[in-house]
C-alpha cells in the first residue's frame, strides 16, 4: 500500500501538466458548488429572519383573571411548535393600534373608551413554520373557554410559505443538478487523464502488472486530485467572498442580517465529496481503459 502511495506521488509529479489542469477543473467545480451552497445557506437564513414575524394572536374573553390567564399560557406553551407566549394588555394593544394607524390616529380620538380586548401573542418556533400546523394550532387554541377569538396573517403566511417552499425546492433541485453535473465534469476530466496515459497503462499491463498494481496508484491520485481541488476550490471561494463582501454589505442596507461564509462542517463535507467524486470518476473511467 505504501508503495502504491509512493508511485502515486511520483506519478503526480511526473504528470504535472495533466494533474495541474485536472486539479484546476476540480477546484473550479468545487468553487461553483460551494458558491451555491453559500448562496442558498445565506438566502435561507435571510428568509428565516422574516419568518420571525409570524405569530398567532389569541383574544381573551373580557374579565379573565390573572390566575386563569397564567394557566392558559402554560397550556398553550405546551403545544408543539409554540416558542413563547406573551400577554398583551388591552391598553398596550390600543397604543400600538394608534401607532399602526399612524396619520389617521386622529380618528381614534373620537373614542372615549378603549374597545380592544386583552390578548396573548403566541410566537411560533421556526421549525413549525407550516401553514397547516399553524391552522391546526389556531383551531385548538380557539377551543379554550377563556379565548374569544384567534387571528393570524393567514394570507401573508400562505404567500410567504409558498415562496419559501419554492425557493427551498428549486434550491435543492438546482444544487442537486449542479452537483451531478459537476460529478460528470470531474469524471470526464479524470477520463481525459486516463486517456492521455492509456499507452503507459497498456505498456505496464503487457510487462506483467496485474490490475491492482495498475489501478491503485490511479485511485490514490484521483483522491489526491479531489482533495487538492477541494481545498483549492474552497480557498478560492473564500477569497472571492472576502473580496466581494465590501461590494455587497454597504449597499445591502440590511443591518439586521449578516452574510456568513459556509459553515466549516459544510466545507469539510464538500472536500470529502470532492475526494469521493474524484475517486468514483476514476473508478468508472478506469474500467473502460483497463478492458480496452
Amino acid at each position: 500500500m505504501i508503495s502504491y502511495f509512493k508511485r502515486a506521488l511520483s506519478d503526480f509529479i511526473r504528470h504535472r501538466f495533466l494533474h495541474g489542469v485536472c486539479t484546476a477543473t476540480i477546484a473550479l467545480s468545487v468553487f461553483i458548488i460551494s458558491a451555491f451552497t453559500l448562496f442558498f445557506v445565506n438566502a435561507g437564513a435571510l428568509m428565516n429572519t422574516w419568518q420571525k414575524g409570524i405569530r398567532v394572536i389569541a383574544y381573551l374573553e373580557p374579565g379573565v383573571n390573572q390566575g386563569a390567564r397564567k394557566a392558559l399560557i402554560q397550556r398553550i406553551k405546551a403545544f408543539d411548535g409554540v416558542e413563547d407566549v406573551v400577554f398583551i394588555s388591552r391598553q398596550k394593544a390600543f397604543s400600538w393600534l394608534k401607532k399602526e394607524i399612524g396619520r389617521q390616529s386622529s380618528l381614534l380620538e373620537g373614542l372615549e373608551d378603549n374597545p380592544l380586548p386583552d390578548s396573548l401573542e403566541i410566537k411560533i418556533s421556526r421549525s413549525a413554520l407550516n401553514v397547516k400546523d399553524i391552522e391546526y394550532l389556531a383551531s385548538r387554541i380557539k377551543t379554550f373557554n377563556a379565548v374569544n377569538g384567534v387571528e393570524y396573517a393567514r394570507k401573508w403566511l400562505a404567500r410567504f410559505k409558498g415562496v419559501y417552499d419554492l425557493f427551498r425546492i428549486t434550491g435543492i433541485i438546482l444544487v442537486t443538478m449542479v452537483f451531478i453535473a459537476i460529478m460528470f465534469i470531474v469524471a470526464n476530466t479524470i477520463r481525459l487523464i486516463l486517456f492521455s496515459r492509456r499507452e503507459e497503462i497498456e505498456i505496464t499491463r503487457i510487462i506483467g502488472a496485474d490490475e491492482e498494481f495498475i489501478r491503485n496508484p490511479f485511485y490514490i491520485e484521483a483522491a489526491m486530485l479531489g482533495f487538492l481541488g477541494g481545498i483549492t476550490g474552497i480557498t478560492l471561494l473564500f477569497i472571492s467572498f472576502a473580496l466581494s463582501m465590501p461590494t455587497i454589505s454597504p449597499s445591502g442596507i440590511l443591518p439586521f442580517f449578516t452574510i456568513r461564509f459556509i459553515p466549516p462542517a459544510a466545507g469539510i463535507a464538500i472536500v470529502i465529496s470532492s475526494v469521493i467524486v474524484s475517486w468514483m470518476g476514476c473508478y468508472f473511467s478506469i474500467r473502460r481503459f483497463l478492458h480496452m
Partner: protein
Amino acid sequence: MDIKPDKHEKMETRASRKKKSVIGFFNVCKFYGESDAIVDVSFTISKDDFALITGPSGAGKSTVIRIIYMGETISSGSVIVDGMNLLRITRPQVPLLRRKIGVIFQDFKLIPSKTVFGNVALVLEAAGVRSKNIIHDKVMSVLETVGIGDRAASYPPTLSGGEQQRVAVARAMVGEPKIILADEPTASLDPEAADAIYQLLQDVHARGTTVVVTTHDLNLLEKGGTRVIHLKSGRMVSIVNQDVWNGL
C-alpha cells in the same frame, strides 16, 4: 482447424517425451478482418531452444510474438506456453504468464514519462519486488550489461534509437524470465552493438532461458539458432532443427 485443444495437449505430452517443449503452436490462425496475419502455423519450441523466426516484412513474425505473450488472441488453433493453454487462461492468470516472459518489442514500448531506470524497474515492481535496494542493484547491473548504465536517469525520448532498443533489451531481461521474446532486437543497432546484444541473448540462453528471436538480419541467421522457423505471408515455409541439420 477443427482439432480440439485437448488433442493438442496430448500431442504436446507425447512430444515432450523427448524434449520439454515450452511454446507450442498448433494450427494457429490469426485473422484481422479479411486479411490474415498467420495461417495454420504449427511449431514447438523447447526449453533449451534458441529459436529464430525469420521472414520478410509483414510475414507474421511479430504476430507470433504477440500471441505468445497474449498481446493478441488467436482466431483458431491453440497455443500452449509453459504448460498453459492460452485459450483456457483466466484473466488474473495473464499477468502471471507475462511475468514468465520478457519481451523486447519491435517498437520498444518504453514509457516516455518514466526514466530509463523507472522503465526497467517497473517490471520488478509489477512482479512484487518491494526492496528498493534489490531493484536498484538489479536494474543498474542489467543497464550496465547492455551498455547504457550512464543514461539511467534519462527519459526515453532523449535517447538515440539504438539506446532505446538497449533499454528495451534491459527491461526484457531484468525480471530473469523463463522465456525471452525478442522482436528484431538489433534492428536499430550498429553491427558491434548488435553483436554484443546477440552475445547477451546467448549468455542468458546458456543460463537456461528459452530465447525466441525474430529477425531479418542475415548475420544473425548465419550465426544460427537451434531452431529456425521461416514464415512468409503468414504461412510456414520451413522449420529447421539446426542440431539435426548439422548432424546430417
